[in-house]
């Protein structure tokens, strides 16, 4: 499956119970507290289940996960290197 912003937003609503009405593609998610940092593991598991990729330990940082556009960019990079 190709990851896109809609899939991510749907995951955030369904699984993390986040109100996504004010979330833009570049809105900070973890550093702003929109998503609590405990949900990071759920997000990683979701990405790995939906995309042909594995999140490497050294990739777990805010540069890769702190907004929808960063997550999508990371998934595209990680998927292409698999």
């Amino acid at each position, binding site marked *: 499956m190709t990851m896109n912003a809609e899939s991510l937003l749907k995951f955030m609503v369904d699984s993390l*119970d986040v109100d996504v009405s004010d979330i833009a593609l570049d809105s900070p998610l*973890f*550093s702003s*507290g929109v998503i*609590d*940092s*405990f949900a*990071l*593991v759920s997000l*990683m598991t979701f990405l790995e289940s939906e995309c042909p990729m594995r*999140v*490497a*330990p*050294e*990739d*777990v*940082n*805010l*540069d890769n996960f702190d907004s929808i556009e960063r997550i999508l960019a990371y998934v595209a990079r990680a998927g292409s290197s698999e």
Partner: protein
Amino acid sequence: MISDGHFWLTIFISVPLYWLLPVRLRAAFLALASYAYLLTLDTPAVLALTFFTALFYVLAPRTQGPQRIRRITSTLVFAVVTYLAYFKYLPGVAALFDDDPVLAHAIIPLGISYFTFKLIHYAIERGRNKLPAHGFADFACYLFLFPIFTAGPIERFERFIAQRDTQVDTTMISDGLTRIAHGLIKKLVIANLLLVPFYGSVTDVSILSERLEELPVYKVWGFFLLSFFYLYLDFSAYSDIAIGISRLYGFRIVENFKWPVLATDIGVFWKRWHMSLSGWCQAYVYMPFIGLTRNPYLASFASFIVMGLWHTGSLGWAMWGVWHATGVVAFVSWQHYKRRRKWRGLARPGWRWLGLPITLAYASMAGVFSSAMDALGPYVALRIFAKMLGL
């Protein structure tokens, strides 16, 4: 520093000179001015930091292969953590085996906790190739900038470079001076003059311990609540002053406090209390732990214990970390439980505000570990703890 006349003299002389200089020379000038001032405070510490500054600037990896980047970054981080441990943690460990260890006489270098964390951040982000182009003067200015050297905030390098104005105007100077005034009023008037008298006869934790049996529970609570408020006013005042002075040079330093005393839960509290330290630990402890273990509970405990030990290498501060981690883990678990049960009513403002006194009480109780446990030992700390719980 604020009681040191040379501190204010350095500002008074260097601010106008800084703005008179061409932009390309300002970072070098401010680094040198900071360096000269800090040398008068703690020459060995500044010389050691000079060594680390050169080492990290020259060796921090940029465009090498991933294996080499990892190796160099790890070596640099190990070197500076060893330096930190030698002064801050080994004396405590040595004291377990020797009544008067040689290491106990080592003087902790000025600002060591702040500059080691800034160096670690720099090495890691440079290895990730996430830092903007910069020269040695920018890096030296970032590390040595004297207003934030001893009490933070722990600024990030890319932010430090990006949030720097090159044109001086009256608004900037007025904002800086106002912020300094806020800090001084907070520290000298509100904390020292208005708050301290409320302690009454129980002015420190030793007196509290001696009179523990005779004191009513509310007085014990009062002592720790007052200590918490004093700590907040004192520390946030230093941050205000540091941020205000930095503004006089055109820098917008990251905020450290955002009304944590009004936090309605412990999660929000930690988004508002010592934000630069918690942000650092989120980036360099919590997330790597998540990457390695995929266990947010373990990652939380690791992060808070690091935060505790960052203050002081002692059992009390480690327990302070455990206490806060327990609070955050319990709170987040409760949030997830509510979400699964669809208990949305509990998110209403009325319910939320009930969390404010609970959060204040919880954060204040952490003082039992950070002050009483280290000063008086675990047994006395537990007695105080039990007393507060009415046991």
